[in-house]
């Protein structure tokens, strides 16, 4: 059995390239260590390319909200128009994320993410020529599709990094990408101010400002295409041609993804950590501008601090997930996810009740840490739900995040039915309710929140069950077998010594 210890420089030369890597790797050539400040090919280079292009997509998707005080006057928007566009901005990515997951499974994360990013860049450029509420809604809708690149980020990290560090890799890549939602609240008002100062009128200055996120998106996608690589040993097309990688069928991947109930539960709960984060990105600048009468730049700075917490909060979630896994295995990952997300919900309720600017900011920052850490913790669990349909499960979960954002904005932030502060409090209540299903997630080989693992259930059985006997005979499932070996640590420290607790309410997994 493969020892997934950190210092093993065990490299199997099963693939063509010669297999010499700077980082230590496991039997699938995935890195077992994460060196943040390195650009070593292919692992760390993939990391930096993917988080940065995802960051640019976030900057573009949320570029409009901090400039709304100007845009709403230019286009004569009503609160309803603004609310609808906010919903549109996150709804496109619901299906795009699921589609992206499948695309990654089939053509690889590099092509999938770069295609999406380059195809949505025109929507950003054309934001500068819109002239009505409906065109505003359309550009925000199409720009929002780019948020699907989240899935390729997580997929790419799960392909490049081994289970002991996959949580932290996913967490930092996701977190630093989400950072874009915060950075844009600083960048856009700054760029707008600069252009306005140089001489443009306000209604032209904001239009020019949109070329910045558009350009960033184009450049980052080209970098991914030119420098990136799907797997440690090469790109999908090349490996498939050489026979080193089996080209999977869409139908099978789809079937094994949608029939895994854990994917659906995580989709729902992710809707109430990430979905909430997206909702806040859309409403928070206007909330502070209107409620506390601060100016555009100040509202942007406050709003930015919410998204900026992502530098450490989401990675922190990933780190916590990996750390809990070292001591308590998968059960530790699930417990920490549940506790952190519940805390986020409570803080959200409190935030809506704050009437003092200072207190409001403090609670918001605390809230941001917990809700974003919950996102990181979720993707500490996702890589283990399925190996064959990893992309689709990532896509479903990611898409669920956006569904949460759509539903929340539809119920609480559309039109003038609820004041923004009431909406925020009620959103917190909804977080608490929608986090409960985590208690239902169960892995036969590792256990769930309240139940221990089934005796004699193994990770090999779990992952091999996704392949038919025929496919197993042809060796298509070899990657899954290696993954199962490398996940042995998800059983927790006392895996062999303690008597297995008989599980009473175990739902049979698909």
């Amino acid at each position, binding site marked *: 059995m493969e020892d997934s210890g950190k210092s093993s420089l065990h490299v199997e030369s099963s693939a063509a390239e010669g297999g010499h890597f700077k980082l230590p790797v496991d039997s699938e050539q995935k890195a077992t260590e994460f060196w943040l400040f390195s650009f070593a090919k292919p692992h760390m280079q993939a990391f930096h390319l993917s988080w940065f292009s995802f960051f640019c997509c976030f900057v573009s998707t949320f570029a409009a909200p901090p400039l709304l005080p100007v845009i709403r*006057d230019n286009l004569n928007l009503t609160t309803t128009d603004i609310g609808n566009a906010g919903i549109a901005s996150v709804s496109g990515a619901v299906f795009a994320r699921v589609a992206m997951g499948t695309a990654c499974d089939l053509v690889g994360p590099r092509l999938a993410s770069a295609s999406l990013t380059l195809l949505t860049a025109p929507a950003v450029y*054309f934001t500068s020529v819109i002239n009505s509420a409906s065109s505003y809604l359309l550009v925000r809708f199409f720009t929002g599709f780019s948020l699907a690149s989240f899935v390729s980020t997580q997929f790419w990290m799960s392909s490049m990094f081994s289970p002991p560090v996959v949580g932290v890799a996913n967490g930092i890549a996701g977190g630093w990408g989400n950072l874009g939602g915060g950075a844009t609240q600083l960048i856009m008002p700054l760029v707008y101010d600069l252009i306005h100062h140089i001489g443009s009128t306000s209604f032209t200055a904001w*239009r020019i400002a949109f070329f910045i996120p558009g350009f960033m998106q184009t450049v980052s996608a*080209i970098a991914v295409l030119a420098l990136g690589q799907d797997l440690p040993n090469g790109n999908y097309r090349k490996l498939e041609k050489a026979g080193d990688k089996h080209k999977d069928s869409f139908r099978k991947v789809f079937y094994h993804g949608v029939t895994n109930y854990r994917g659906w539960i995580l989709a729902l709960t992710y809707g109430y950590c990430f979905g909430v984060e997206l909702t806040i990105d859309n409403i928070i600048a206007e909330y502070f501008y209107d409620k506390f009468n601060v100016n555009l730049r100040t509202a942007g700075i406050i709003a930015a601090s919410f998204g900026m917490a992502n530098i450490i909060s989401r990675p922190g979630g990933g780190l916590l997930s990996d750390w809990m896994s070292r001591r308590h295995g998968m059960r530790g990952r699930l417990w920490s996810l549940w506790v952190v997300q519940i805390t986020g919900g409570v803080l959200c309720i409190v935030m809506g009740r704050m009437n003092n600017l200072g207190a409001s900011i403090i609670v918001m920052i605390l809230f941001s840490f917990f809700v974003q850490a919950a996102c990181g913790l979720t993707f500490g669990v996702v890589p283990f739900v399925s190996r064959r349909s990893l992309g689709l499960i990532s896509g479903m979960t990611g898409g669920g995040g956006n569904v949460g954002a759509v539903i929340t904005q539809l119920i609480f932030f559309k039109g003038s039915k609820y004041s923004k502060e009431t909406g925020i409090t009620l959103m917190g209540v909804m977080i608490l309710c929608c986090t409960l299903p985590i208690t239902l997630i169960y892995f036969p080989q590792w256990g769930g929140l309240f139940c221990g693992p089934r005796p004699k259930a193994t990770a090999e059985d779990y992952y091999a069950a996704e392949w038919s006997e025929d496919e197993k005979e042809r060796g298509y499932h070899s990657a899954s077998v290696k993954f199962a070996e490398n996940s042995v640590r998800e059983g927790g420290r006392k895996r062999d010594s303690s008597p297995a607790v008989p599980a009473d309410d175990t739902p049979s997994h698909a």
Partner: protein
Amino acid sequence: MATAPLLRLVLVVSCIGSSMAVLFSGLPNTLTVTASPAAGQVLHAGVDQIKVSWKLNESTPASADSGYKKVKVLLCYAPVSQVDRGWRKTDDHLKKDKTCQFKVTTQPYSSGGGGSFVYSVERKIPTGTYFVRAYALDSGDTEVAYGQTTNAGKTANLFDVVGITGRHASLDVAAGCFSAFSILALVFFFVVEKRKAKK
């Protein structure tokens, strides 16, 4: 309406000064304000002008304006432009009121006589329906009286402004070029990829 108690209120307010919250409902309507646009006229931002003139009401005693030092004239949103737009809400507390967001002019008040000003509609004025309001300020810059071109219900004598679009042909062209470049870059890489896989 008896002017004496109102005058007393004005004096009290101006004595206490800016530390007290000024309510719009507490201000006397002692100024007559007229603006050049006819009711329903459409003006274009950056192009047209508004001539505003103000003077003390004929019915107000001449001594009422002893506290008036300055006149502040503002362009204000009519109710139809405030619907479903919380950032333009009318609030009785003048500090919180967002009805009048554009300053036309601030001038010293000339006792007895009136004043006028020709305002070029700025390019930052958004599309909407408006009226003009003038506040009389005391030496502490606190509002002590007002007058407006419309009635109390803000339904009469309103005019429209059409704002600039902010669009330029150069922006349209640039957007087209950058978009085309992005798509072409993608196509280029796909072609290169296909060629490499063939080898």
